[in-house]
């Protein structure tokens, strides 16, 4: 029984992708987890993984072809169910970049993003020469081009979010003292490679809480809300030159801190190289954004559809804090929750944030 490998939707903001390269050929036996193809999306090149052991019968799409989500890319033989998440199969409605076929091929080879590139050819089409000129000039230019495409993707997804999701917000300031003390002690005796970043604690505390509050962890689709069986925690990662992507740390609630740290490190690196794996690019069930050292008190996030909640952490700042009736200087952290009112209400949101706070107060238990 052959079945189709379709272009999966790797995010709510993805409705098409360009097949860059096949890593398999007809007749290839592929094992679960093996990379079958590279697909270029607005968020960079993503590895298309095989989810079941299969044999490739036929490749249906030529490299260089831009196809809609849900398009069959290859025929696979094997007993298993379809290899990847199947998208809607909707037509690409976004206007295509006007570029000559030769320019498209060269752009792929040179790693130049066509989006946002000013074409000088007939009808304003991007030509070979345009691509080569861009490739010759500083690397900053294609990044800017790429960033423009990413910006467009973010714009589309966030607009949809604000259009469709009735957001509500809950805020809570958390005493980060216990966590900071624990972390300082933990890192003090370890070489740089084994140290933890504060972000790991925030992620783990959130993931653990999410397991107890499944109404914030899942997807809202045409069929309504369905909570996820796992906690794949999306991490908003800022890209240099602008833009943000939010790939997932898979099963974040089940992994010890010492494992989460290198996974987070790898995730950031892949995101910034524009080379995320398909399994992590689109699977987040709940997302966290952390502003780190930027000095903001708090951040009110916009939910990534089809998720139903997002946690935002401001910077850890020293602030006066009342302890046992006295004012002390403490490192504090502004935590915010944006959540989907179609699924939960503010009271539940406050409980969810409180549970995160509790987790951070006992970091040794994380």
């Amino acid at each position, binding site marked *: 029984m052959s079945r189709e490998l379709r272009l999966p939707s790797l995010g709510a903001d993805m409705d098409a992708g360009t097949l860059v390269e096949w890593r398999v050929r007809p007749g290839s036996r592929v094992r679960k987890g093996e990379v079958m193809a590279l697909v270029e999306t607005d968020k960079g090149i993503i590895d298309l993984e095989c989810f079941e052991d299969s044999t490739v019968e036929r490749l249906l799409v030529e490299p260089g072809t831009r196809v809609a989500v849900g398009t069959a890319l290859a025929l696979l033989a094997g007993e298993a169910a379809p290899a990847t998440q199947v998208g809607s199969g909707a037509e690409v409605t976004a206007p295509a970049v006007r570029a000559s076929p030769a320019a498209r091929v060269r752009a792929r080879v040179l790693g130049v993003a066509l989006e946002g590139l000013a074409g000088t050819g007939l009808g304003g089409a991007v030509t070979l020469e345009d691509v080569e000129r861009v490739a010759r000039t500083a690397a900053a230019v294609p990044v800017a081009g790429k960033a423009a495409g990413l910006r467009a993707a973010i714009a589309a997804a966030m607009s949809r979010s604000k259009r469709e999701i009735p957001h509500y917000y809950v805020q809570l300031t958390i005493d980060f003292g216990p966590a900071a003390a624990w972390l300082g002690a933990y890192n003090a005796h370890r070489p740089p490679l084994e140290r933890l970043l504060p*972000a790991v604690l925030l992620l783990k505390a959130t993931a653990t809480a999410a397991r107890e509050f499944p109404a914030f962890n899942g997807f809202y689709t045409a069929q309504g809300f369905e909570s996820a069986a796992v906690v794949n925690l999306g991490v908003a990662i800022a890209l240099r030159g602008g833009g943000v992507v939010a790939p997932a740390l898979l099963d974040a609630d089940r992994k010890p801190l010492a494992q989460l740290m290198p996974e987070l490190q790898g995730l950031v690196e892949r995101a910034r190289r524009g080379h995320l794996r398909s399994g992590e690019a689109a699977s987040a069930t709940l997302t966290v954004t952390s502003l780190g050292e930027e000095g903001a008190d708090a951040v009110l996030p916009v939910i990534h559809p089809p998720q139903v909640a997002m946690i935002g952490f401001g910077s850890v700042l020293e602030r006066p804090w009342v302890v046992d009736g006295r004012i002390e200087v403490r490192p504090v952290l502004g935590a915010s929750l944006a959540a989907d009112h179609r699924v939960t209400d503010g009271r539940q949101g406050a409980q969810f944030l409180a549970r995160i706070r509790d987790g951070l107060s006992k970091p040794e238990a994380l």
Partner: protein
Amino acid sequence: MTGSLESRVLALLTEVAPDVDAALVLPDVDFREQFDFDSMDVYNFAVAIHRALGIDVPERDYRELSSLSRCVAYLERARIARTSSSST
């Protein structure tokens, strides 16, 4: 040996952030300002310094890694400190 240390630090910097052009790094401007360095970059930078130069920068000194000149000066001191301690 400063020149050599500086070029090694620059190499580590571009390893951590491949999109940084070593020729364009301003020595006295904070990395955060120049190329959006964040805590993960600092972490990676510290890991790379440890691996390549054998210098373990403690977490409390991470702020010393915030610009090229500051970083080179810090690592220079750290090397001297290490050499002298090992020679005694």
